[in-house]
């Protein structure tokens, strides 16, 4: 069963569409379920790849 905008529906009654995207920042995949020409479910999974970094520096005596 798939959670949809119309309540739980049998997956076999729906058209499944999937996609993915990847770059240096993320790896993303999504799945959609369509009931005819209406999208009734879309889930997305994003894997964050790009770290947040802050560099440190100290001062010297001059």
């Amino acid at each position, binding site marked *: 069963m798939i959670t949809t*905008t119309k309540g739980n529906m049998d997956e076999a009654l729906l058209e499944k569409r999937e996609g993915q995207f990847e770059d240096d920042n993320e790896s993303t995949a*999504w799945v*959609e379920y369509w009931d005819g020409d209406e999208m009734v479910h*879309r*889930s*997305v999974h*994003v894997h964050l790849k790009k770290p947040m*970094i802050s560099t440190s*520096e100290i001062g010297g005596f001059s």
Partner: protein
Amino acid sequence: MSNTQAMATSFKGEILSGIHALGTTVIRAGTGADTLKAALYLASATINAATTAYTVTGEVSGTGYSAGGVTVTNATAPTTSGTTGYWTPSASLTYTTVTLTTAFDCVLIYNSTQSNKAISAHTFGSQTVTAGTFTLTMPTSDATNALIRIA
């Protein structure tokens, strides 16, 4: 032997743990780990390095989404490796059974224990979710890949 000018690596990790108070106005709400949260923002919002705290302005809204977002699982304390201090949430951020029809592309991690002060903003490709689940999985928590690093 010789002396080397450096910032102590331990200090970098301890900054993330709130051990040092170099200012005079630091008020800690408690001695335990703070509660962190993660809120999603519309692609039209302006969340960036200048963001000082969680704001409802530009936050997503929709069925199943609670304002303020979800609690970040913070079971692993900041640590150091080499000369880098780092920290990563210990579990994915999951927004279960939500409908977010307006495109969003940013998550703000903030400290709900400390007056919702901002920690970091992370962007990704613009997305919508329909009666589904939005999951953000974390990078490996090490000195090279951790979500937040002080090098």
